[in-house]
Each structure stands twice: as structure tokens, then as C-alpha cells.
């Protein structure tokens, strides 16, 4: 067989995958090309084969025509793919944040394993869980599609009005609110400079008492000031740049600050004075803040995604 024809068929064969009819298809194409070469050019040589192949089409295009009716995921499930991934990712994300805060690993059979991580590992872990969740949902929908059964998949109704959130994000920032934010922030900075803490056990006129040890007071107060500062700064930036990226970067920065705080525990930070386990309460409070920040981050990420998707759809 002509070398050129051999290469051409081999290339088509790659694109055809592993179907059982593959060999038959390739024999059909080969037979046709040789027939045409002989009928139209009087011989089956390298040159005539080359000319027939040129008109037959590129290998990928040829293979695709045989796969017209083979879908990986039915078009009707495209919506499910996005929605299921979003729900799964949300749960996965929340569990990862909790595992990260409590410095533990988490195993939920049969699919989830969340390792014990430090800051930077966690940062890289988040995109990875998204890809994992997308893949997992994709595989399930693939099997549902291939089964060719009339399966009605549940459609979780997320009672979230994204449009409202998008509109809210695009509202013009208010100067009065900015002034109030600045005043509040300045007041907190003043308290910190005066007392070297923002967390108080008692506010007796005789003398205030900090909730934490001096080192922990400084560390936690500065962290809180940084998190709130990021919020005020982002609001200020909105007067100049009206983009969803500002909110996303703000929530990412806040999460990162919290991550740094969690990653540097301080020995005997909390003074024992309550009747219950103060460390557990503190952990739960931090977990709650982390969860709220994580939800905010996710919300901003989704809004940005929706806007990018709409922009792309409009451009088409």
C-alpha cells in the first residue's frame, strides 16, 4: 500500500478512537481512494493517491463525520453539568476550608479525600478540587448519556438571584458609606494604638483587660484590621475601577490573611477564664468567619464567571 495512504488512514484511525467498526471504516475509505485514483488518473501511484486524498478531506474532519451521532454528554445535560459541579464544588470547598482551619485531613467515602495542608498547598488545592468535581460530574453524566435510558435527573433549585447580585455589584459606590467606613476604621485603629488590642475581656474604668496574651492580641488585632482594611480599600477602588475583579481580589486577600492567621497558632493565646473550652469556641468563631469569607469569594467567582460567559455568548 502507498506510504501516503497508509499515513492518512493511520491518522483517521487515531481520531476514530476504539470503536469496533474502525477497521471496516478504514477498509471502506482505502477501497474508495484506490478506486478513485485508478478511475480518474489511470493508476494507483503515490501521485494519484496524493491527489485523491487532497479532495477527501482532513483526517479529523473525516473521522468526525462517522461520529455524528455519538455524544459524550447529551446536550440536554449541559445545564446539569454546570449546576451539579457548582453544588458539589460548594460543598467540597466548605469542607476543605474546615479541614484547613482545624488542621486535619478529611475522608468521605467513596470520593473525597482532603489532605492536611498549609497555606500555599491550600491555595493550589482549590482549583484542583474544581477540576476534580467537574470531572466527577462529567463522568457520571457520560455514563447516563451512554446508557441511552430515559433518566430524569433532579434539577436542584438554587434559590439565589444571581442577576440581583450582579446588579448590586454594579451599583455606584456611595461617598457617604465610604466616609462612614473610614471613620469606623479610623476608630478601630485609634483603639488599637491606644490599647494594643481590639479584643477585650473587660472594660472597667480602672483599666481595660485584653482577651488574649499580648503577642496574640497584637497578631489577631492586626489581622482583623487587615481584613477590614482590605474591605475599605476595595470600596475606595470601586470609585475608580468598576469591575467584579475588585470584589474577587478583595475576598481572596481576606481569605489569605485569615489563612496566614490560622497557620500561625500562638501558644496560650487565650487566657483561661470561662467555664467552657475557650479554644474550641475560638476555633468555631474563626471557622465561621472563614466560611463566610469563603462563601463571599465563591459568590464573586461565580458572578465573574457568569459575566464572562454572557460576554462570550454575546460575542458569538
Amino acid at each position, binding site marked *: 500500500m502507498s506510504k501516503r495512504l497508509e499515513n492518512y488512514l493511520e491518522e483517521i484511525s487515531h481520531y476514530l478512537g476504539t470503536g469496533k467498526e474502525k477497521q471496516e*471504516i478504514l477498509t471502506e475509505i482505502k477501497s474508495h481512494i484506490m478506486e478513485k485514483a485508478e478511475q480518474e488518473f489511470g493508476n494507483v501511484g503515490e501521485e494519484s493517491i496524493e491527489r485523491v486524498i487532497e479532495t477527501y478531506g482532513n483526517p479529523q474532519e473525516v473521522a468526525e*463525520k462517522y461520529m455524528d451521532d455519538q455524544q459524550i454528554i447529551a446536550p440536554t445535560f449541559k445545564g446539569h453539568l454546570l449546576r451539579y459541579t457548582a453544588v458539589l464544588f460548594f460543598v467540597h470547598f466548605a469542607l476543605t476550608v474546615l479541614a484547613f482551619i482545624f488542621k486535619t485531613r478529611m475522608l468521605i467515602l467513596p470520593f473525597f479525600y482532603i489532605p492536611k495542608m498549609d497555606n500555599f498547598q491550600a491555595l493550589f488545592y482549590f482549583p484542583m478540587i474544581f477540576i476534580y468535581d467537574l470531572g466527577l460530574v462529567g463522568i457520571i453524566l457520560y455514563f447516563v448519556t451512554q446508557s441511552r435510558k430515559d433518566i430524569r435527573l433532579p434539577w436542584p433549585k438554587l434559590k439565589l438571584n444571581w442577576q440581583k447580585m450582579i446588579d448590586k455589584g454594579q451599583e455606584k459606590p456611595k461617598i457617604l458609606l465610604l466616609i462612614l467606613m473610614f471613620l469606623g476604621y479610623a476608630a478601630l485603629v485609634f483603639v488599637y494604638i491606644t490599647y494594643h488590642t481590639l479584643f477585650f475581656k473587660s472594660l472597667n474604668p480602672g483599666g481595660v483587660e485584653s482577651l488574649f496574651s499580648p503577642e496574640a492580641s497584637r497578631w489577631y488585632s492586626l489581622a482583623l484590621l487587615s481584613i477590614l482594611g482590605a474591605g475599605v480599600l476595595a470600596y475606595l477602588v470601586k470609585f475608580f475601577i468598576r469591575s467584579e475583579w475588585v470584589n474577587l481580589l478583595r475576598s481572596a486577600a481576606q481569605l489569605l490573611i485569615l489563612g496566614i492567621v490560622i497557620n500561625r497558632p500562638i501558644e496560650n493565646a487565650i487566657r483561661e477564664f470561662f467555664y467552657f473550652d475557650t479554644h474550641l469556641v475560638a476555633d468555631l468563631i474563626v471557622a465561621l468567619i472563614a466560611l463566610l469569607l469563603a462563601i463571599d469569594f465563591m459568590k464573586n467567582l461565580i458572578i465573574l464567571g457568569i459575566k464572562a460567559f454572557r460576554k462570550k455568548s454575546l460575542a458569538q
Partner: protein
Amino acid sequence: MAIDIGPFETEMNRGFLQVLVLVLLEKDKYGYLMVKQLEEKGYVLEENTLYPLLRRLEKKGLIKSKWDISEDRPRKFYVITKDGRDVRAELLKIGRLQNKILNHLLKENQNV
């Protein structure tokens, strides 16, 4: 703005080509011969469209095929089946009805 007619034509051809092949295969033929016969009638059918179509029709039992190895070069011959004839008759009926409706509406448009 000039609109690319290609995708519309492909969509329209999808059904037409099925009937065309079913009509063409009243007698057994091999692929290259079918392309040539249509070419003589002024219709260009790309080979890489014809073969996947033949495969789909065969899978549905509307045509059947057989390799002929009596000559130097093996050739795959296709011919319509009984089911294929039944389907063809129905499809032609639908096609005629569609044409009738279309002509009727076009005539109405002319009178407007």
C-alpha cells in the same frame, strides 16, 4: 451582512441525502459509482459525507452491504432492503407534501 449559507444547506441536505441514497440504491452499487452517477446528474456529493451516511442507513437496516472480491480490487456494494423501501415510500410522501405546502404558500405570497 452576507450570511454564510453553508450551515443551512447542510441542515437541509441531511434529510434529502437519506432519500437520495435510498432512491439511488434500488440496484446494488458501490460508493464511487454512486458519486459519479450523481455528478452526471449535476449533484456533487462529497465522498466523506456519503460513506458515514451509508453506514448509518445500514445500521438502521434500511440498506445492506456486501464486499465483492471477485475482481482485483475489493468493492463494497450496497442495496436497499425491504424496510428501506417502506421507509423510502413514507419519506417520499412526506417530501411531496412538504413541497406542496411550500408551493402553495409561495403562490400566496406572490398574490399579496
